[in-house]
């Protein structure tokens, strides 16, 4: 796998993403500054979390117009795998690679904690090392993770198997109590139609190392490395 991590001004999970990928890949991905106009030859692009442009204007809105994003969109349309985590997810929605928006959390506060996610689609190159219905423990850290989209788009996402993860309890039950931020249908992560672009609010790269308290994020990067080797 040839991997790149995009770095925007205000990205702050870029190093976390690098380390997360490195755990599975055995080498460091390339770090690409947002002002670049060309991407190296890669088959996996990660758009990391953080506060690109300070979340000013609207989360991800300004980054979506960074020079490098034209290339990311082009590559995504060519089938290159793209993962957006947290602010990266927000950027991918602003760039039009994924539908919907991420609104302010229902309780209006920043939330940082481990949550459980039910794996909804375990047949993608991101998720095939999990099993469908499995509850995995992954941290969230966001202020604007409340996924919203209109009824038609939501129905399409559900119908096409584009919902990758839902917030659930530790036993995999998807319910209101486990919906930490008010997202529609408890959605924590979605795929594009072709399933080569995944956006998710939780941070799989933060739990790839037992010393940090868990490794439930690692199978995602293992799966990508295996699919792209």
């Amino acid at each position, binding site marked *: 796998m040839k991997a790149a991590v995009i770095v925007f*001004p*205000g990205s*702050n999970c870029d*190093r976390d993403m690098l380390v997360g990928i490195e755990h599975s890949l055995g080498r460091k991905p390339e770090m690409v500054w947002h002002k670049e106009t060309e991407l190296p030859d890669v088959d996996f692009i990660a758009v990391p979390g953080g506060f690109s442009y300070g979340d000013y204007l609207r989360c991800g809105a300004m980054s979506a117009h960074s020079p490098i994003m034209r290339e990311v969109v082009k590559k995504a349309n060519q089938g290159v795998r793209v993962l957006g985590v947290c602010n990266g997810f927000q950027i991918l929605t602003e760039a039009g690679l994924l539908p919907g928006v991420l609104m302010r959390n229902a309780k209006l506060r*920043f939330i*940082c904690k481990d949550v459980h996610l039910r794996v909804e689609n375990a047949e993608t190159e991101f998720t095939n090392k999990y099993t469908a219905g499995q509850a995995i423990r992954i941290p969230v*850290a966001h202020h604007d993770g409340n996924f919203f989209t209109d009824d038609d788009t939501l129905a399409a996402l559900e119908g096409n198997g584009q919902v990758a993860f839902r917030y659930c309890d530790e036993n995999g039950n998807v319910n209101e109590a486990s919906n930490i931020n008010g997202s529609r249908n408890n959605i924590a992560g979605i795929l594009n139609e072709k399933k080569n672009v995944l956006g998710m609010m939780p941070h799989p790269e933060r739990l790839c190392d037992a010393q*940090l308290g868990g490794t439930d994020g690692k199978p995602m990067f293992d799966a990508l490395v295996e699919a792209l080797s």
Partner: protein
Amino acid sequence: MSEITPEIVKEHGLSEDEWKLCLEIMGREPNLNELGIFSVMWSEHCSYKSSKKWLKTLPTEAPWVICGPGENAGIIDIGDNQAIIFKMESHNHPSYIEPYQGAATGIGGILRDVFTMGARPICNLNALRFGEPDHEKTRHLVSGVVEGIGGYGNCVGVPTVAGECEFHASYNGNNLVNAMAVGLADADKIFYSAAAGVGNPVVYFGSKTGRDGIHGATMASAEFTEDSEEKRPTVQVGDPFTEKLVIEATLELMKTGSIVAIQDMGAAGLTSSSFEMASKGGVGVELELDQVPMREEGMTPYELMLSESQERMLVILKPGMEDIAKAVMDKWDLEFAVIGKLTDTGNMVLKWNGEVVGDLPIDPLALASPEYDRPWVKTPRPAELKASDVESNVGRIDALKTLIAHPNMASKRWIWEQYDHMVMGDTVGRPGGDSAIVRVHETNKGIAVTSDCTPRYCYLDPHEGGKQIVAETYRNITAVGAKPMAVTDNLNFGNPERPEIMGQIVGCIEGIGEACRALEYPIVSGNVSLYNETNGTGILPTPTLGAVGLIADVDKAASVAFKAEGQAIVVLGETKGWLGASRYLEVLCGREEGAPPPVDLAQELATGNFVRAEILSGIDTCHDISDGGLAVALAEMAMAGSMGCTIDIPANVEAAYAWLFGEDQGRYIVTVDADKADAFVMKAGEAGVTANIVGKTGGSDVVLGGEAVSVAELKDLHEGWMPNYMAAAE
């Protein structure tokens, strides 16, 4: 320039004597620009004039100290050419006036102190103190301060991993926001602030300068009165996004080899940064103030010198390196300007479009910085209470339930879940334990961090209280298996012009110094915040300490959670049942009195060394005993591990409630396998440490001498208070 009237002098916070000294140094009447500079440089905030005499008595040296107080932050050596740079600083006054921005800019400021010296910040801590929960302002302040700290820290991407939060009526009009930043640097690549090289360019980078925060340092050096609300314009506004860029740009600039000296613009902005850099380097400086990047039109030299706009840095470059530095700032879209040069005049000369608008001698002003030996009276030590002096009409289980749900003892998860405590991917010990642990990136080494203060002890006996804080941080670092390395102090007190307050300052500093000497635990940085009074009522003396420890292998760290059923629970240290100044006395009896428990420093060292060695050789569960005594510590271990315990109260104790809730110092709880417990107790005895097996782990209840409560109920109570309290405002 307008004539300086006595009113103007007074507005600038200078006493009559200070004004006379000012005239003497200048040899003429200063103009307004110059007066403004005198005002901030001699403010309590910048000059430590009331506390300096006593601060000098603190121990600041050890073989592992690279840099003690006097620079932007303290530095210790952690081996492998790595250094930890850290400091704690208050932002009390601004946070009361405007909680979100006041707290946020406190984080920004302390981070700059650390990365200015070449460190990448690796974690933040904060120690918060608010008025009574029922006070009309408290919820608003808690909400704003926590949101401000989170808003800034989360955005800059530095994990906030530890802290404390306490409520007391004495903070009703003066909340405390003490923030600590910890950074990691290469020991051979540390940057200092002493300017050098006549002719070298003085360069400004970061944000533009606006009119915010003018005279913030002077405001922070006066008591609050009814009209303090009107001081809102002196609170600065933070921009964490720019700070993040400034961090990255500064660290990148440092790699170019172009820097001679560097300092952030903190309190008193351009004045104190340029003045201190020149003063430390023994050089003069000439500033072209019209070259300073300005946020608004029509700004004056006076405003430019005194603005406390955030996210600004001042650097002395090597000659000819301007283009290299500018390229870095262009990459990060930051302001860059050459605003002056170093001179050999020994003076600070301010120019505005070529015209001299200020000319002050640097050394005389710095050397004449006032130092007061303020009168003080020793706080009388209260009587020692016996267990029989304390009513005990509440059952032990009810007492435990009340204590763990009390505002000062309840879980602060509501706070730390609003802080990103995991970003940077090295938080191996998350908030909620005795110390948080941050791994040194790409190694197995860990940095343990904690912040502590027990104001009620300091109020009743400043000297013992001061000792106890040091010991408490020492225990919290030790309880995870780390070696306590060094301390930063953030001394918050009332008005030092009152002898009884000055007595608290002196007593606490003496106690802190004595304990730090005994424990080989130097103070390497710090900050003083005085005048925490509103209408003549002072806060409890609150000398918050932040501490840093080192563990060579994070896999060996212990945590508070019970982990295995059927293990023996061993208390290390002696339990006598000291209830004076205890939480039990305060919460269940409504009495804040009695002598606080004394700290035996020699025993503290022996017990600490034993505990640490045992953790490194396999003990994985450890908790120090502090507020609420043995019973509360056990409940915390049970809640963290979702596992109960059964405790036998020794038959020979004078009073069970004193044994359960007494706050005797120097104690830890550990668990050991049942079949090894006797040998462990014997080993402790050989090391000179009292050890007693008090019970065993297991089950779903905490059972204290035959009376039980479920861990689930305890958790509901402990976790419930703060969310319920804050929800009442929504």
